Protein backbone atom coordinates (compact mmCIF):
# COMPACT_ATOMS: atom_id res chain seq x y z
CA UNK A 1 0.00 0.00 0.00
CA UNK A 2 1.11 3.53 -0.85
CA UNK A 3 3.02 4.95 2.15
CA UNK A 4 1.18 8.25 1.79
CA UNK A 5 -2.13 6.69 2.71
CA UNK A 6 -0.94 4.68 5.69
CA UNK A 7 -1.59 6.48 8.97
CA UNK A 8 -4.25 8.54 7.24
CA UNK A 9 -7.34 7.57 9.21
CA UNK A 10 -8.51 9.22 12.44
CA UNK A 11 -10.60 7.04 14.74
CA UNK A 12 -12.20 6.86 18.15
CA UNK A 13 -11.71 3.58 19.98
CA UNK A 14 -13.68 1.83 22.64
CA UNK A 15 -11.64 -0.10 25.21
CA UNK A 16 -12.02 -3.55 23.62
CA UNK A 17 -10.11 -3.12 20.34
CA UNK A 18 -7.21 -1.35 22.06
CA UNK A 19 -7.08 -3.98 24.79
CA UNK A 20 -6.97 -6.71 22.15
CA UNK A 21 -4.04 -4.94 20.48
CA UNK A 22 -2.26 -4.73 23.86
CA UNK A 23 -3.01 -8.35 24.67
CA UNK A 24 -1.40 -9.71 21.50
CA UNK A 25 1.27 -6.99 21.42
CA UNK A 26 0.29 -5.65 17.99
CA UNK A 27 -0.34 -1.96 18.59
CA UNK A 28 2.06 -1.48 15.67
CA UNK A 29 -0.80 -2.40 13.33
CA UNK A 30 -2.98 0.34 14.81
CA UNK A 31 -0.09 2.76 14.33
CA UNK A 32 0.28 1.57 10.74
CA UNK A 33 -3.24 2.45 9.65
CA UNK A 34 -4.40 5.16 12.03
CA UNK A 35 -3.08 8.69 12.33
CA UNK A 36 -4.72 9.24 15.69
CA UNK A 37 -6.91 7.28 18.09
CA UNK A 38 -9.13 9.33 20.36
CA UNK A 39 -10.49 7.82 23.57
CA UNK A 40 -12.85 9.30 26.15
CA UNK A 41 -11.12 10.16 29.45
CA UNK A 42 -13.31 7.70 31.33
CA UNK A 43 -11.63 4.83 29.45
CA UNK A 44 -8.23 5.55 31.03
CA UNK A 45 -9.39 4.15 34.36
CA UNK A 46 -10.69 1.07 32.59
CA UNK A 47 -7.28 0.44 31.01
CA UNK A 48 -5.65 0.78 34.42
CA UNK A 49 -8.18 -1.66 35.82
CA UNK A 50 -7.03 -4.15 33.15
CA UNK A 51 -3.32 -3.62 33.92
CA UNK A 52 -2.87 -1.80 30.63
CA UNK A 53 -2.35 1.71 32.01
CA UNK A 54 1.39 1.73 31.27
CA UNK A 55 0.88 0.49 27.70
CA UNK A 56 -1.75 3.15 27.12
CA UNK A 57 0.61 5.80 28.50
CA UNK A 58 3.24 4.76 25.95
CA UNK A 59 0.79 5.27 23.08
CA UNK A 60 -0.25 8.64 24.50
CA UNK A 61 3.42 9.70 24.67
CA UNK A 62 3.91 8.52 21.07
CA UNK A 63 0.99 10.74 20.05
CA UNK A 64 -1.03 7.84 18.65
CA UNK A 65 -3.65 7.93 21.40
CA UNK A 66 -5.24 11.21 22.48
CA UNK A 67 -7.49 11.39 25.56
CA UNK A 68 -10.51 13.69 25.31
CA UNK A 69 -12.78 14.87 28.12
CA UNK A 70 -16.48 14.99 27.43
CA UNK A 71 -18.56 18.06 28.22
CA UNK A 72 -21.54 17.70 30.54
CA UNK A 73 -23.84 17.87 27.51
CA UNK A 74 -21.87 15.05 25.87
CA UNK A 75 -22.02 12.97 29.05
CA UNK A 76 -25.80 13.42 29.07
CA UNK A 77 -25.93 12.41 25.39
CA UNK A 78 -23.84 9.32 26.22
CA UNK A 79 -26.38 8.26 28.86
CA UNK A 80 -29.14 8.45 26.25
CA UNK A 81 -27.06 6.39 23.84
CA UNK A 82 -26.27 3.83 26.56
CA UNK A 83 -30.02 3.43 27.12
CA UNK A 84 -30.50 2.90 23.38
CA UNK A 85 -27.80 0.21 23.46
CA UNK A 86 -29.62 -1.55 26.34
CA UNK A 87 -32.81 -1.53 24.24
CA UNK A 88 -31.11 -3.43 21.39
CA UNK A 89 -32.11 -7.11 21.21
CA UNK A 90 -28.43 -8.10 21.04
CA UNK A 91 -27.61 -6.31 24.29
CA UNK A 92 -26.70 -8.74 27.05
CA UNK A 93 -26.41 -6.20 29.87
CA UNK A 94 -29.70 -4.74 31.17
CA UNK A 95 -28.03 -1.90 33.14
CA UNK A 96 -27.26 1.10 30.94
CA UNK A 97 -24.23 2.00 33.08
CA UNK A 98 -22.52 -1.09 31.66
CA UNK A 99 -22.68 0.50 28.18
CA UNK A 100 -21.50 3.99 29.13
CA UNK A 101 -17.90 3.48 27.86
CA UNK A 102 -19.11 2.50 24.38
CA UNK A 103 -21.71 5.27 24.46
CA UNK A 104 -19.07 7.87 25.37
CA UNK A 105 -16.87 6.64 22.51
CA UNK A 106 -19.84 7.02 20.15
CA UNK A 107 -20.47 10.58 21.36
CA UNK A 108 -16.79 11.43 20.91
CA UNK A 109 -16.85 10.04 17.37
CA UNK A 110 -19.67 12.46 16.59
CA UNK A 111 -17.60 15.51 17.61
CA UNK A 112 -17.09 17.12 14.21
CA UNK A 113 -13.97 19.10 15.08
CA UNK A 114 -12.00 15.85 15.60
CA UNK A 115 -12.63 14.79 11.97
CA UNK A 116 -13.08 11.16 13.04
CA UNK A 117 -13.81 8.85 10.14
CA UNK A 118 -14.80 5.73 12.07
CA UNK A 119 -15.12 4.11 15.47
CA UNK A 120 -13.39 0.96 16.71
CA UNK A 121 -16.09 -1.00 18.46
CA UNK A 122 -16.65 -4.74 18.96
CA UNK A 123 -19.84 -5.09 21.04
CA UNK A 124 -22.68 -5.98 18.74
CA UNK A 125 -25.41 -3.87 20.35
CA UNK A 126 -23.20 -0.77 20.53
CA UNK A 127 -22.21 -1.28 16.89
CA UNK A 128 -25.88 -1.40 15.93
CA UNK A 129 -26.57 1.95 17.63
CA UNK A 130 -23.40 3.51 16.17
CA UNK A 131 -24.52 2.46 12.70
CA UNK A 132 -27.99 3.91 13.29
CA UNK A 133 -26.24 7.19 14.12
CA UNK A 134 -24.40 7.07 10.79
CA UNK A 135 -20.95 6.16 12.09
CA UNK A 136 -18.58 3.89 10.17
CA UNK A 137 -17.23 0.97 12.16
CA UNK A 138 -14.31 -1.31 12.45
CA UNK A 139 -12.92 -3.68 15.05
CA UNK A 140 -9.50 -5.08 15.87
CA UNK A 141 -10.13 -8.15 13.69
CA UNK A 142 -10.91 -5.87 10.74
CA UNK A 143 -7.47 -4.32 11.24
CA UNK A 144 -5.88 -7.79 11.35
CA UNK A 145 -7.65 -8.73 8.09
CA UNK A 146 -6.26 -5.60 6.47
CA UNK A 147 -2.80 -6.74 7.56
CA UNK A 148 -3.55 -10.15 5.99
CA UNK A 149 -4.48 -8.36 2.77
CA UNK A 150 -1.09 -6.65 2.84
CA UNK A 151 0.59 -10.05 3.37
CA UNK A 152 1.79 -8.87 6.78
CA UNK A 153 0.00 -11.73 8.53
CA UNK A 154 -0.53 -15.37 7.64
CA UNK A 155 -3.64 -17.26 8.81
CA UNK A 156 -1.43 -19.16 11.28
CA UNK A 157 -0.02 -15.92 12.70
CA UNK A 158 -3.51 -14.46 12.94
CA UNK A 159 -4.71 -17.51 14.84
CA UNK A 160 -1.88 -17.14 17.35
CA UNK A 161 -2.75 -13.46 17.90
CA UNK A 162 -6.46 -14.15 18.42
CA UNK A 163 -5.78 -17.11 20.71
CA UNK A 164 -3.40 -14.95 22.73
CA UNK A 165 -6.20 -12.38 23.13
CA UNK A 166 -8.54 -15.16 24.19
CA UNK A 167 -6.07 -16.48 26.76
CA UNK A 168 -6.08 -12.96 28.22
CA UNK A 169 -9.88 -13.06 28.44
CA UNK A 170 -11.25 -11.53 25.25
CA UNK A 171 -14.13 -13.70 24.16
CA UNK A 172 -13.16 -14.74 20.64
CA UNK A 173 -14.97 -18.05 20.06
CA UNK A 174 -13.45 -21.04 18.22
CA UNK A 175 -15.97 -20.46 15.43
CA UNK A 176 -15.04 -16.78 15.07
CA UNK A 177 -11.31 -17.54 15.09
CA UNK A 178 -11.72 -20.34 12.51
CA UNK A 179 -13.82 -18.17 10.21
CA UNK A 180 -11.63 -15.07 10.29
CA UNK A 181 -8.45 -17.14 9.83
CA UNK A 182 -10.12 -18.67 6.77
CA UNK A 183 -10.89 -15.15 5.53
CA UNK A 184 -7.24 -14.24 6.12
CA UNK A 185 -6.23 -17.25 4.01
CA UNK A 186 -8.53 -16.12 1.18
CA UNK A 187 -6.93 -12.68 1.20
CA UNK A 188 -3.47 -14.22 0.98
CA UNK A 189 -4.23 -16.17 -2.22
Amino acid at each position, binding site marked *: *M*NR*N*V*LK*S*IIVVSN*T*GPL*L*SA*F*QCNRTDLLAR*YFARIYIPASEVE*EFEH*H*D*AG*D*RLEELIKDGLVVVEHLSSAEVAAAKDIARRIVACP*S*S*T*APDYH*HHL*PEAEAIVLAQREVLEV*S*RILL*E*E*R*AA*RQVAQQLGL*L*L*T*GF*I*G*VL*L*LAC*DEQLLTPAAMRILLETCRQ*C*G*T*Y*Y*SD*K*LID*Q*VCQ*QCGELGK
Partner: protein
Amino acid sequence: MKISANSHDSEESLLTAEDAWQDYQSLKLALTAEEAESTIQQCLELPPGVSALVRELVATGICEDEREVITRAVEAFFVAVSRRPARRRQVVRDAKAKYE
Protein backbone atom coordinates in the same frame (compact mmCIF):
# COMPACT_ATOMS: atom_id res chain seq x y z
CA MET B 1 2.85 -7.90 31.96
CA LYS B 2 -0.30 -9.80 31.06
CA ILE B 3 -3.23 -7.59 30.06
CA SER B 4 -6.32 -8.98 31.76
CA ALA B 5 -9.76 -9.71 30.34
CA ASN B 6 -11.79 -6.94 28.82
CA SER B 7 -15.45 -6.37 29.28
CA HIS B 8 -16.72 -8.79 26.64
CA ASP B 9 -18.81 -11.14 28.66
CA SER B 10 -20.21 -13.55 26.13
CA GLU B 11 -19.95 -14.71 22.55
CA GLU B 12 -23.37 -13.22 21.82
CA SER B 13 -22.24 -9.71 22.72
CA LEU B 14 -19.28 -9.66 20.32
CA LEU B 15 -19.08 -9.09 16.60
CA THR B 16 -19.32 -11.98 14.13
CA ALA B 17 -16.95 -13.06 11.35
CA GLU B 18 -19.32 -11.39 8.86
CA ASP B 19 -19.05 -8.14 10.84
CA ALA B 20 -15.24 -8.45 10.87
CA TRP B 21 -15.22 -8.99 7.10
CA GLN B 22 -17.38 -5.89 6.58
CA ASP B 23 -15.02 -3.96 8.89
CA TYR B 24 -12.08 -5.04 6.73
CA GLN B 25 -13.84 -4.10 3.50
CA SER B 26 -14.86 -0.71 4.86
CA LEU B 27 -11.30 0.01 6.05
CA LYS B 28 -9.84 -1.15 2.76
CA LEU B 29 -12.26 1.08 0.85
CA ALA B 30 -11.33 4.07 3.00
CA LEU B 31 -7.61 3.51 2.41
CA THR B 32 -8.18 2.99 -1.32
CA ALA B 33 -10.06 6.30 -1.47
CA GLU B 34 -7.23 7.99 0.45
CA GLU B 35 -4.76 6.47 -2.01
CA ALA B 36 -6.69 7.82 -5.00
CA GLU B 37 -6.90 11.27 -3.42
CA SER B 38 -3.20 11.22 -2.58
CA THR B 39 -2.36 10.32 -6.20
CA ILE B 40 -4.50 13.18 -7.51
CA GLN B 41 -2.90 15.59 -5.04
CA GLN B 42 0.56 14.52 -6.22
CA CYS B 43 -0.48 15.05 -9.84
CA LEU B 44 -1.75 18.51 -9.01
CA GLU B 45 1.40 19.59 -7.20
CA LEU B 46 2.66 21.43 -10.27
CA PRO B 47 5.89 23.45 -10.41
CA PRO B 48 5.19 27.12 -9.53
CA GLY B 49 5.77 28.34 -13.10
CA VAL B 50 3.29 25.82 -14.51
CA SER B 51 0.74 26.69 -11.82
CA ALA B 52 1.03 30.32 -12.90
CA LEU B 53 0.30 29.29 -16.51
CA VAL B 54 -2.78 27.36 -15.40
CA ARG B 55 -4.07 30.36 -13.42
CA GLU B 56 -3.42 32.66 -16.40
CA LEU B 57 -5.37 30.42 -18.78
CA VAL B 58 -8.34 30.52 -16.41
CA ALA B 59 -8.01 34.26 -15.64
CA THR B 60 -7.99 35.18 -19.33
CA GLY B 61 -11.08 33.07 -19.96
CA ILE B 62 -9.41 30.63 -22.36
CA CYS B 63 -10.43 27.80 -20.07
CA GLU B 64 -13.35 27.78 -17.66
CA ASP B 65 -11.40 26.29 -14.76
CA GLU B 66 -8.21 24.38 -13.77
CA ARG B 67 -9.85 21.10 -14.63
CA GLU B 68 -10.39 22.21 -18.24
CA VAL B 69 -6.77 23.42 -18.52
CA ILE B 70 -5.42 20.07 -17.38
CA THR B 71 -7.88 18.08 -19.53
CA ARG B 72 -7.03 20.02 -22.68
CA ALA B 73 -3.31 19.91 -21.95
CA VAL B 74 -3.37 16.13 -21.57
CA GLU B 75 -5.43 15.71 -24.74
CA ALA B 76 -3.08 17.98 -26.72
CA PHE B 77 -0.01 16.16 -25.39
CA PHE B 78 -1.53 12.80 -26.25
CA VAL B 79 -2.31 13.90 -29.82
CA ALA B 80 1.25 15.25 -30.15
CA VAL B 81 3.07 12.12 -29.02
CA SER B 82 0.77 9.13 -29.63
CA ARG B 83 1.91 6.64 -32.27
CA ARG B 84 -1.63 5.39 -32.83
CA PRO B 85 -3.24 7.52 -35.61
CA ALA B 86 -6.75 6.17 -35.11
CA ARG B 87 -6.58 6.87 -31.39
CA ARG B 88 -5.22 10.38 -32.06
CA ARG B 89 -8.10 11.12 -34.44
CA GLN B 90 -10.60 9.85 -31.87
CA VAL B 91 -9.18 12.14 -29.17
CA VAL B 92 -9.32 15.12 -31.55
CA ARG B 93 -12.94 14.33 -32.50
CA ASP B 94 -13.97 14.00 -28.84
CA ALA B 95 -12.20 17.24 -27.93
CA LYS B 96 -13.84 19.16 -30.78
CA ALA B 97 -17.24 17.90 -29.70
CA LYS B 98 -16.58 19.11 -26.18
CA TYR B 99 -15.10 22.53 -26.81
CA GLU B 100 -16.75 23.74 -30.04
